[in-house]
């Protein structure tokens, strides 16, 4: 993609993060080697970018970000549904235990796989069993 001074551009390789906005800027200089100086909107910082650029036009960058946002929202919903379903199963297990005079809290052998899985994704504390 050929750029010229004054072009509005956006980063084309930024992974999506919730609450993050598309990173846009303006090309303010191009040197004789083709390196770009870009002033970024979010903090007015200027940085020099050497080829090959991973830049898109502002419109393309916005479109890319919108698609990532949609994908994220759909994925978030799907994951939320899965975790709600998992929670419902734990609830059922808890009720089964309770209705039979038992306490799921004490059934460590049964719940260990779930606790381990939670720990493996970073949801764990030493006080989880407290």
């Amino acid at each position, binding site marked *: 993609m050929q750029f010229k001074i004054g072009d509005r551009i956006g980063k084309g390789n930024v992974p999506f993060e919730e609450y993050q906005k598309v990173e846009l800027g303006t090309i303010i200089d191009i040197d004789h080697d083709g390196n770009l100086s870009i002033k970024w909107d979010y903090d007015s910082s200027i940085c020099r970018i050497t080829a090959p650029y991973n830049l898109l036009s502002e419109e393309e960058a916005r479109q890319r970000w919108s698609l990532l946002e949609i994908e994220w929202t759909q*994925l978030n919903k799907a994951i939320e549904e899965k975790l709600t379903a998992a*929670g419902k*199963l734990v609830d059922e297990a808890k009720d089964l235990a309770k209705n039979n*005079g038992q306490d799921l809290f004490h059934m460590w052998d049964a719940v260990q796989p*779930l606790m381990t899985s939670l720990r493996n994704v970073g949801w764990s504390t030493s006080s989880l069993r*407290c």
Partner: protein
Amino acid sequence: MENKFKVGDKVVYKNHVHYGAYSDGFESMTVVDLTLRGDVIIFQTDWYQGTRKITIDQNELILESEANEKLAQLEKDWNELEPVITGKIKQATNVFHEAVALAAEKGFKVADFDVMYEVRGMTRSGGWSSSAFSC
């Protein structure tokens, strides 16, 4: 009041017969005396008080033989219940793994998503909630 028990009987606290994940069984005690109002006197040994005579309402007690029957039934119930509960938790774990895989397919971690409410709900159901859980 008529006594259900006699001196020498082995008795057990009715509510102390238990079979489950963390304990099973009961402790039996021998009747050493009876009171006129229907109480039972036994020797009870506590780790902190040593052996002492205590008086118990006879309605709180059952015979050891009854306790054995009750325990056998509780064990049977537990052996039927435990795999069902374990199965539910396994199912929950599998569904959780599906969520992890869904996130991983797109290069994310499940913890990147806004699902703490659901995770908290899940752990609260199990009785494992803690204020430090989100750390």
